[in-house]
């Protein structure tokens, strides 16, 4: 997925660079809080000083795990992109940081991804992936009943959506600053279509990996805090419930209370928007627009090859029309919902944080809304780009409201 130089024009690359820099700056502050006190080793040391070694090691892990090959079939194999995994394991801020550092180093050392495209790469692969995955993961974790299976299911869904969401974000960037005029509908369909497939692989691996970690060290899974069993004290050979430590206590019961009151709301909203988007876009794409029809008639899609979640060079950027236009429209719609949910939660968090009057915490909505910020921009260009996907109407409403907190954040 690494975008090279010359792919996106200079002004948009610069703008993406600014977005990426902002997101990284916010993450630098957020990560200090996230890596505060998860560890087994005493509470004597706390706060930001753990950030550098822990985030560095997690970045090294992401870097290494991207080299771990998962065979698909017949000699092809896929590998993890890692954004969703990082978000779930260490939290969104640290996730953004780690993936950004990996991208920076890949750009500088391996020339993998252009230097001017670094902003685009970070925005798309570090910020969007991580934030979308985390929002969906937390959202589902609130809706689903508590337990390890739910965590795995939530991790699966989060990773599944995060990859096509990144593809969608890339398409949006391309729509504004692409150097070649290709029908945006076509780019979107191809990118998102391929990445849904890649996303399935990513989702399976992420869910399995999160499951493996949660089975051994549930305390290390940032997204699943509060699912651990209460501590016991051994007093004279018998196990006694430990009095809840102030730190752990704050983490556990608070979401529980919040979850109950918001769970229904979340569930209803999620289901409604999924159904709506699926249906609307299914019928909206009944009549593929003229250009796509031409493409089909001229048989452009014949020359394109089949791609799985493969590691083949083409896989990341491959162009593949999903033959069923309706299906692809529907998929785009569902992805639209994903973006909507993110936007919604960003606003929700921003509002709630501010109401709580916790100054520094208000920035937590920062990266979420930055992601949305990029998402909202193309709605302005939508009329000229003649976007054929049904997702446009569903995304546009919430994003316009989400840009407001982004400005103050």
């Amino acid at each position, binding site marked *: 997925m690494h975008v*090279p130089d010359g792919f996106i024009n200079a002004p948009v690359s610069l703008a993406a660079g600014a977005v990426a820099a902002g997101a990284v700056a916010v993450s630098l502050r957020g990560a200090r809080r996230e890596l505060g006190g998860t560890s087994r080793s005493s509470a004597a040391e706390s706060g930001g*000083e753990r950030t550098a*070694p822990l985030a560095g090691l997690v970045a090294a892990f992401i870097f290494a795990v991207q*080299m*771990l090959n998962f065979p698909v079939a017949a000699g092809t194999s896929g590998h993890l992109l890692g954004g969703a995994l990082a978000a779930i394991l260490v939290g969104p801020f640290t996730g953004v940081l780690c993936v950004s550092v990996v991208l920076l180093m890949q750009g500088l050392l391996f*020339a993998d991804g252009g230097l001017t495209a670094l902003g685009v790469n970070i925005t798309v692969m570090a910020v969007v992936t991580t934030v979308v995955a985390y929002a969906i993961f937390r959202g589902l974790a609130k809706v689903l009943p508590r337990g390890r299976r739910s965590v795995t299911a939530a991790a699966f869904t989060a990773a599944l959506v995060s990859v096509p969401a990144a593809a969608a974000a890339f398409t949006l960037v391309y729509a504004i600053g692409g*150097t*070649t005029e290709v029908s945006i509908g*076509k780019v979107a369909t191809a990118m998102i279509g391929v990445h849904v497939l890649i996303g399935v692989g990513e989702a399976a691996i992420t869910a399995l990996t999160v499951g493996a970690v949660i089975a051994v060290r549930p305390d290390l899974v940032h997204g699943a805090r509060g699912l651990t069993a209460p501590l016991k004290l051994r007093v004279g050979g018998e196990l006694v419930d430990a009095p809840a430590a102030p730190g752990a206590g704050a983490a556990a019961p608070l979401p529980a209370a919040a979850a109950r009151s918001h769970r229904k709301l979340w569930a209803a909203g999620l289901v409604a928007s999924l159904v709506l988007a699926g249906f609307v876009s299914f019928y909206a794409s009944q009549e593929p627009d003229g250009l796509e029809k031409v493409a089909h008639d001229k048989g452009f899609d014949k020359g394109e090859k089949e791609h799985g979640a493969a590691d083949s060079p083409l896989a990341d950027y491959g162009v593949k029309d999903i033959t069923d236009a309706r299906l692809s429209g529907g998929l785009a719609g569902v992805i639209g919902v994903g973006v909507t949910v993110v936007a919604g939660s960003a606003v929700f968090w921003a509002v709630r944080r501010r109401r709580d009057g916790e100054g520094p915490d208000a920035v937590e909505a920062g990266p979420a809304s930055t992601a949305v910020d990029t998402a909202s921009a193309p709605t302005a260009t939508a009329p000229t780009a003649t976007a054929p996907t049904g997702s446009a109407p569903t995304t546009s409403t919430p994003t316009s409201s989400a840009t407001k907190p982004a400005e103050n954040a």
Partner: protein
Amino acid sequence: MGAGHAHRLYRHGRSPVHALPPHTKLTAVFCFVVVVVSTPREAMWAFAAYALLLAAVAYAARVPPLFWLKRLLIEVPFVAFALLLPFVAEGGRTDVLGMSLSVHGLWGAWNVLAKGTLGVAASVLLAATTDLRELLLGLQRLRLPPLLVQIASFMIRYGDVVTDEMRRMKIARESRGFEARGVRHWGVLAKSAGALFIRSYERGERVHLAMVSRGYAGSMPVIDDVTASRAQWTGALALPLSALAVCLLGWTLS
């Protein structure tokens, strides 16, 4: 993604390019790439000029052409993508060898190929002439947030350690007769990945302990710093400045 080990990218040498302070080189490469990206694609000769400039730098740095060309292979996926552009892009069409190709697409493909290749070539030269540690010092000097530089530094220090652990786990799996052949085996691989994460995280905690034990209190002491003389800056910026001249010429002529 990241192919091979980090230290193989650097070619030790004593050339004038190696001797330049890292932050001047980083600035030069970045400015050069920005200039390249801003050049109008119609000015084909300009890109040839850029390539010549880079070749001159490579010659001065004594980077063997074969080494350089091999490293360029990283952009193969984009070549493939660029080759698709003429088929899918919009606009007027032209016939080449019996195929109907989009004129826009052809220009687009050229644009991506030329600029992408020059970008990769410049980055490869940077990585080949700059030590990992120097690169970090350069980033630090260029006022990248210190925490980010530290994370990058830890990532580089432990990248090999973690990769090595992953390799040992693979050997351990294979020694017990396990070979991942398909989707059915993902569970086992994911368990390894999970174990790798736990090991990495716990190592992070131990590293933190070791740091605290030596008086770390949240900020890394700046032990080394790099400085550049005016002459060194001039030397490094010669590349982007001459590129800028070419670029401006490209804009006026086209």
